């Protein structure tokens, strides 16, 4: 029962992080596309991203990306590798925690 609950939570987190990333991606493409009008336009956008609230949002997106990656690897492992259920969950959890902790440290936020 507990394992089922963890699997459901992982599936929901995978889905919600994917939804958030899918909504963000068009905005990301638009921002990078600013370079088409010149480096100054891209720099103006980057200056705007120095606002603390935007920085917090960026950190959230990086964490969501790492989380979606880790949970996606869990799905691929479940479907394609002959691993034991508990080992798979532990491996995915370890990947996710390592990525999130490493990124949080690396970004010095």
């Amino acid at each position, binding site marked *: 029962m507990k394992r089922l609950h963890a699997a459901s939570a992982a599936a929901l987190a995978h889905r919600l992080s994917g939804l958030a990333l899918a909504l963000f991606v068009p905005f990301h493409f638009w921002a990078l596309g600013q370079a088409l009008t010149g480096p*100054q336009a891209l720099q103006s956008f980057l200056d705007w991203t120095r606002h603390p609230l935007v920085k917090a949002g960026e950190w959230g997106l990086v964490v969501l990306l790492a989380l979606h990656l880790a949970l996606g690897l869990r799905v691929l492992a479940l479907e394609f590798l002959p691993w034991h259920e508990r080992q798979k969950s532990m491996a995915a959890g370890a990947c996710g925690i390592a990525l999130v902790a490493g990124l949080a440290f690396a970004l010095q936020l």
Partner: protein
Amino acid sequence: MNAAARLGAWLWALQRGSAAVLAACVLVHLVTIVLATRAGLSAEAILSRTQGSVGWFGFYVVFVVALAVHAPIGLRAIAAEWLGWRGRALDLLTALATLALLAGGLRAIWGVFR
């Protein structure tokens, strides 16, 4: 196998195949984000890395194509399971989302490459 089941099987294969490609791309992207942020993010720094770089151009094209396949199939599953959307309209929306992501992504790549 009927048409709907065949489409479902194709979407499943495309979703998993694109996920495997994206796993590698996202890892590279995360490392790049960390290194670029530490070095100080600026338009000059981004463009000096990407402008005229065939390697980065190829990497981002693969990244965008995999993303344009992967994300709409995921959104389609959410729309079907949570909102109950079905049929041709959902097929059309999935195709439009793929084309929109491809266009937006390739435009962004061209912006930082040229």
